[in-house]
């Protein structure tokens, strides 16, 4: 069913969705759709906005992300640098093998703390 929805959203041309919540001093950004050369600037702007508002502890929930390219990775790394400059943190939630593979190939699996679920992410903070 996940595969199902993923494909449909692809053909439908849904691009990126961003939903922000606050929980226990953390800011959770739930990202959905495709993070690519076209949509990544929207995620970058959102992160910049949050950091500008003094929110330095970010959790990026990528469970509903269908696609990620190097532009998306660049935005995540850029975000990590930004929060670190304020002694903050940025952790990722991702349990999709397709995406984890991308972090491994680029060596970024060692750079990010990646949790399997929101529950894990909030428990282990």
């Amino acid at each position, binding site marked *: 069913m996940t595969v199902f929805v993923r494909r449909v959203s692809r053909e439908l041309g849904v691009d990126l969705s961003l939903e922000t919540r606050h929980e226990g001093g953390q800011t959770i950004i739930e990202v959905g759709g495709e993070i690519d050369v076209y949509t990544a600037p929207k995620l970058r702007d959102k992160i910049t906005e949050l950091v500008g508002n003094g929110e330095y502890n970010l959790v990026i929930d990528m469970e509903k992300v269908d696609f990620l390219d190097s532009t998306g990775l660049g935005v995540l790394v850029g975000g990590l640098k930004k929060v670190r400059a304020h002694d903050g943190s940025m952790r990722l939630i991702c349990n999709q093998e397709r995406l984890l593979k991308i972090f491994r190939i680029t*060596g970024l699996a060692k750079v990010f703390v990646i949790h399997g679920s929101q529950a894990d992410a909030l428990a282990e903070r």
Partner: protein
Amino acid sequence: MRRGVTRTSTGITVSIARDPALVRTVRLIAAAVARRASPDEEFVEEVRLAVGEACALMVGESASDAGPVTVRLALDTRLCVDVVAAGPVAMADSFDSDVDGVEPWALLRGLIDDLSIERDGDSTTLSMSWPVSAVA
């Protein structure tokens, strides 16, 4: 109304304006062609990612008036994909990186063993290919 025509290879070439929004369409095409080569969704995803990545790199490289990016997909005993763009392409890490060993090309190089990059006159061609079994 032809049918049952014997053919040894099948190809599709797509040229897009340097508009990031069109890269997704190229991914759609790459996935459709890959799926003709094999129903293995892992293979299809790999082709989608690699072709999209190559295309994003070329589209992102220069101004939107730098001419189109052309993607040629040919399906034979291998699925061969060439991504061609006018102008030079910066292959090195062009930004100050404080995270060692990461750069935009890392992903593509990691995905494709036989990635080749060729300059020919004014244009740059990225080539990649995958073995395929019989084509339906």
